[in-house]
């Protein structure tokens, strides 16, 4: 009898456990956050949120926008019929930290923000240029729901705007931004994406890094280059735009294809890069006067050439190769000059090269690389380029000379 009572007590107690599912989430109650935009707030624009306020705010305040999927209208839309309203909602609040912003917004929209589907984080240039950027970045590395593969972008002007700028056929702007960065990677601009994980690794190893720099238009977003972040306090120091960004990626060897316009006779031709091999060598390891040689070797093809040239002739091909190499060298030197003189930040991957290949030397000069004695700025960097053609399209000449 006593045994039976014991069993019953056990069963009733376990009921207490069974009912408690603390983390139960109904899919209707989840707000899938797919994009985050962080903007600066000017002093006169400070709004006192009723939930936030206790009057003691001394820290920097951000305007944080979340893009949340309207799951009900997404479902209606996929049925083929006319979707009801928009497929997403952008909702903004002012807060000191990401966590607070998410809490307020969650309370406001009656849904629990869920960040595992987060696609893009957009940071306004104004925020990126302050040292606080690395502070608010902490959340994206620390919060368990966020993947390290989430992409980051620096937005010219207001970051919020980019979350609205999408062509009409696009249902979710956050996905759209990610898609264009993927596409440009394979076509012309050859800029690698910048992900939370990579940026965090750069910050931890005290290296400078780049983040894609985008400009929102009315109905689209364009990628214009990369924002450069220094290793001193991890804030944005400048940008590499267009060809400079391309050349930088050639130097670092992070290319998935790109186009180099070159002088072909009197007119222009376009050289598509298919393969890049970059070799950096340290020619003089005297810390006071470091000497680097960067050798860029490319393989590519021609899809367009405005001059009539007999491409069957090895002599002409050599001439094109030389002209392409000349152009690559010019661009690379431009970028080297910009990074040494204007940005004063090593975007060329030399620090990384030194850590990997000359760890002893690096240990010595680490503190004086970009700061202190500024050895990077004072080092001598020469560029060599070599280009070769592997295809010239399907025809030789397209018109008679």
């Amino acid at each position, binding site marked *: 009898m006593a045994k039976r009572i014991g069993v019953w007590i056990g069963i009733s107690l376990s009921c207490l*456990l069974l009912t*408690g*599912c*603390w*983390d139960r989430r109904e899919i209707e109650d989840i707000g899938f956050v797919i994009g985050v935009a962080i903007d600066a707030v000017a002093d006169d624009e400070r709004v006192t949120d009723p939930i936030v306020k206790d009057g003691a705010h001394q820290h920097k305040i951000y305007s944080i926008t979340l893009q949340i999927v309207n799951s009900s209208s997404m479902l209606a839309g996929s049925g083929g019929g006319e979707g009801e309203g928009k497929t997403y909602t952008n909702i903004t609040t002012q807060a000191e930290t990401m966590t607070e912003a998410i809490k307020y917004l969650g309370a406001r929209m009656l849904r629990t923000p869920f960040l*595992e*589907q987060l696609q893009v984080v957009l940071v306004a240039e104004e925020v990126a240029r302050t040292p606080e950027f690395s502070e608010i970045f902490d959340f994206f590395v620390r919060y*368990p729901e966020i*993947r*390290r*593969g989430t992409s980051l972008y620096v937005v010219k002007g207001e970051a919020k705007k980019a979350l609205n700028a999408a062509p009409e056929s696009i249902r979710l702007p956050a996905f759209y931004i990610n898609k264009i960065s993927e596409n440009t990677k394979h076509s012309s601009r050859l800029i690698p994406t910048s992900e939370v*994980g*990579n940026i*965090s*690794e750069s910050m*931890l*190893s005290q290296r400078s890094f780049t983040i894609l720099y985008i400009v929102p238009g009315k109905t689209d977003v364009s990628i214009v280059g990369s924002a450069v972040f220094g290793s001193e306090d991890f804030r944005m120091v400048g940008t590499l735009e267009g060809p400079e960004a391309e050349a930088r990626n050639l130097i670092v060897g992070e290319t998935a294809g790109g186009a180099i316009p070159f002088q072909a006779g009197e007119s222009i031709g376009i050289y598509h890069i298919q393969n890049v091999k970059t070799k950096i060598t340290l020619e003089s390891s005297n810390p006071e006067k470091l000497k680097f040689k960067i050798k860029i070797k490319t393989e590519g093809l021609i899809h367009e050439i405005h001059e009539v040239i007999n491409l069957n002739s090895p002599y002409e091909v050599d001439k094109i190769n030389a002209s392409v190499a000349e152009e690559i060298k010019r661009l690379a030197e431009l970028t080297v000059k910009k990074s040494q003189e204007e940005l004063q930040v090593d975007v060329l991957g030399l620090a*990384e090269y030194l*850590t*990997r*290949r000359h*760890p*002893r030397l690096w240990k010595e000069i680490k503190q004086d690389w970009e700061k202190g004695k500024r050895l990077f700025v004072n080092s001598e960097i020469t560029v060599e380029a070599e280009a070769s053609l592997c295809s010239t399209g399907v025809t030789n000449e397209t018109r008679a000379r």
Partner: protein
Amino acid sequence: MKVYNYNQIRPYDTAIIVASAQLGTSILTLPRTVTEAVQTSDGWIAILISGLIMLFVSWILGQVLIQYPGWNLVTISSRLIGVKLTQLFFLLFAAVIMCYFAIVIRMTGLLTKLYFFELTPLEIIALAFTLVVVYCAAGTRIAIMRLNLIFMPMIIGILFIVLLFSWPQITWRNMEPLFTFRWTDLLRGTGTSILSYNGFIIILFYGYLIQASPKIPRKIMMGTGIVIFIYLLVFVFCVGVLGVHTTMNVYVPTIELAKEAEIPGGFFDRLQSIFFAVWILAIFSSAVFALDITTLLLQSVFQKIRKMSWILGIAPIAYLLSMIPRNNQEVFEWGSSAIVVLFSLSVTYTFVLFITAKWKGRRRHG
């Protein structure tokens, strides 16, 4: 078909059981602890060296078992080093393994809460886990072994799926610079990583279940070999995908690795949840081993008390112990000290048995 005794473990299975006893929570944090110690991407050398040492220890363990096939450890040990000393060792082992059990309970709760159940109280997660472990340990010993044989392919399978899908994200340059460690750091790293092999001792306690065979030492070494291989792979992937500095800073790099893995097609988006769910099986089996061995040890010292009473006595104590650390950092700290004690005790005991066995053996023959 080869017929074998249901109540025995085949030599082949021994390898798998040894491997599954060693794979547990430590693989999740190993890349971090090793990189922290070695400070460069050369941590794999430390893992390799410690693995080779463990292969040697496994061989020694096999030598002890092979001399007394089918014997109970109490009998072997009492004969070799005397009843009193055996009981002392057993009680020490029981205490340490119980602490280890507590740490495993806490780690499970901690990790599950960190990555999955943000709102569920840790106490509840840990309690549920403990109850399941108790249920399993209450069964027959051989059933635990069989359960491990079923789990092992799943565990290794999911691990390889994770590695396969993180392959495209490896940056091999992260492994450079090679061979830039300082010897003292490497030594420290070896010390840290050798602790991840601490489960090997269980096969000594389960020795009486193993079918007599000359292959035993080889199979135990094979089990350790599997573990070395897996540890090396996971380390290289973590550093390759995450980078040295991130590996050093992220608390549970192996789960972060699983988080990074992407299955093309976008249908299965969150690999880490499947990975972790399966990996709980590995942690579960280490916990079951720990609880079962604690009861086995106490039972052999105090023979009057039933097994069930021991289990129901130990589990609540371990559960309460597991709730003592106040935060994650303390759990990691306590965990490593419990493992240090367990590991050194295991190695000492193995060597004591081996040496006395050799000595007595020589006297017997000579």
